[in-house]
């Protein structure tokens, strides 16, 4: 999927941050990601990396006040998050959310089904009588389940992972691997991973990086934007482009060696430059 971000300016939305007032967070971001490319966006804390990720996915907390986000020629500025997901945009969260009482499989099933319109719905006033057709295993669903089990096992998630309550009681590493599990299962066209590497130990990072590589290999037209604070994930994944973000802008773009430079010298140079 092709992603074009032009002069994107974003404020926090006053509706949701009542009393806080509008705060400018992204101050004109330009980014172009071609189909099948891997981009890494780096930057210090507070530079706007995570905001960029959430704005691409359509978080209602943020308000686009200028510029545009275009995927495959379509402006998505005004689309709700679910419509963006249906276009093939996927955000791997920095802090995945818990959904108590809902199994991993149920979330995944809903995600894969999207809005299927042919479901029979019950009505108020109806008796609770078993609809036996619902008990018949859906063949396609069982295939999906099988795929999920294979992905889960490749990510070293436990055998009962699919029946666990979504992210509830997961370790930090399990939460991150659960994000990757969803990416593998949903085969999105544009993947944004927000600090997928934070909170992972070396083995966890290798596992996740391996899965990302495998994903990129099997989904050759899908694009990846990996947002990170550290360069260490680049030991495992080859990026086509590396960008540095500071104070709400992308201030430098380059090839993989830019990451090594940051690794060595830190972000200080960019931060002072942007002020």
């Amino acid at each position, binding site marked *: 999927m092709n992603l074009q971000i032009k002069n994107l300016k974003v404020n926090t939305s006053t509706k949701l941050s009542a009393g806080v007032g509008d705060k400018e967070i992204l101050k004109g971001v330009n980014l172009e990601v071609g189909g099948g490319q891997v981009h890494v966006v780096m930057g210090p804390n507070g530079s706007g990396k995570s905001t960029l990720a959430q704005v691409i996915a359509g978080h209602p907390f943020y308000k686009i006040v200028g510029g545009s986000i275009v995927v495959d020629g379509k402006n998505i500025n005004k689309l709700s998050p679910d419509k963006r997901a249906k276009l093939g945009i996927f955000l791997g969260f920095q802090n995945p959310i818990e959904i108590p009482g809902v199994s991993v499989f149920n979330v995944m099933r809903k995600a894969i089904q999207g809005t299927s319109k042919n479901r029979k719905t019950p009505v108020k006033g109806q*008796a609770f009588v078993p609809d036996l057709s619902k008990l018949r295993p859906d063949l396609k669903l069982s295939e999906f389940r099988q795929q999920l089990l294979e992905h889960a096992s490749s990510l070293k998630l436990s055998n009962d992972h699919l029946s666990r309550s979504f992210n509830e009681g997961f370790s930090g590493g399990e939460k991150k691997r659960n994000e990757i599990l969803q990416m593998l299962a949903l085969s999105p066209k544009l993947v944004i991973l927000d600090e997928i590497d934070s909170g992972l130990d070396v083995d966890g990072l290798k596992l996740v990086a391996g899965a990302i590589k495998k994903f990129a290999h099997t989904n050759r037209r899908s694009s990846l934007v990996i947002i990170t604070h550290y360069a260490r994930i680049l030991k495992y994944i080859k990026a086509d482009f590396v960008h540095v973000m500071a104070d709400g802008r992308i201030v430098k773009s380059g090839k993989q060696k830019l990451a090594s430079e940051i690794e060595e010298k830190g972000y200080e140079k960019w931060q002072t430059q942007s002020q």
Partner: protein
Amino acid sequence: MADAIPVTDYKYGFSKPENYVFKSKKGLDVGVVEEISSMKGEPEWMRDLRIKALGIFEKKKMPSWGADLSSINFDDIYYYIKPTDNQKSDWRDLPKEIKDTYDAIGIPEAERNLLAGVTAQYESEAVYHSFQKKWEDMGVIFCDMDTALRKYPDIVKSYFGRSIPAADNKFAALNSAVWSGGSFIYVPPGIKVDIPLQAYFRINAANMGQFERTLIIVDEGAYVHYVEGCTAPVYSTDSLHAAVVEIFVKKGARCRYTTIQNWSNNVYNLVTKRAFVEEDGVMEWVDGNLGSKITMKYPSCYLVGRGARGEILSLALAGSGQCQDAGGKLMFLAPDTSGEIISKSVSVGSGRTSYRGLVKIIKNAERVKCNVRCDALVIDEKSRSDTYPTMEVAEDNVQIGHEASVSRIGEEQLFYLMSRGLTEVEATSLIVNGFIEPIVKELPLEYAVELNRLINLSMEGSVG
């Protein structure tokens, strides 16, 4: 929520022509009560009990607490409607209107596949009954209350009104005066009925009052699971459902009683349910309230024998114009008894839920263990949830836990699920289903599936 749902979706809110054998006049007096009793050919003691109960009903005040019941007009209700001449045990023998009703709801198929026995009550009388011979041969009795009164008068007489006397409350008095139908179950010692027995209650006529009376006796070491489902069509005028359920769990026995109440939103649902639990017996109430205009229902366990246990799982979903005032009562009347109340309520689209619970521990009921947990989920600004927990504890050597929470659906939860392709309604439904999961997992699978779908529908009508 009726307002929010397009009329075309409401296909189970249908009504059928009223081809009744007998319909009492509107309103209530001694004449109506005597007429009901004589139509049924009841023994004199039952007729006297009814007339005495009517006197109590007339004297008793409406409850001064709970939901607003001021718009119930007792003079505008039909207290007794007899839909057929006699009860059928073959589905094909039912009058067409009634058969069509149950066919539309899907009962024959469910019966064939999943149940040990079924009773279907239409208006005031059970119109259909079937029960697997296997269980009958083992001495299990499952029939409607009117039949029980005719065939097993001694058992009925010794238990009727013993746990819920007419004087208990105004609606128990009303039920005692005009009761008709309901289920009677007796399980002999040591018999474990391993698939559920089920009753379906259907109100068809407008301004109808349904007053079923259910009596369950689970003898020593026995087990039974009874499931009831309730529906009614949509009318512009209100109907009244005032049932009484009495359960006796003997030594070492266990009873589970599952209700999924999905009355249409013009039914006042005012039900008294009580179980007496003897030594080492276990009573489990699984009480789901989704429909009705107003529900006031607090299933209770009187733990009278040492080591008895009571569990109450209460689930309430209140949509627009609905008030679900539900909860439970645990009475610890013997040492070493234990119990738990878990209440989950969801209010949406200006719906109102209240948890009302009573835990009472008498002096000398030592080593009682009791846990109460009530969680409320309030979906939007217009909805409301209240909690009224009461504890009366006269014994020091006890362990009591109480937890309560009220939550809203988080913006971050919604965003997360929507970023996975779920619409706002789907995301909300999923979160609600997760919230009530601790109770839903106690339901038979088919009912859990139905419940999830109904909740999705409620959210569709109210969210976004």
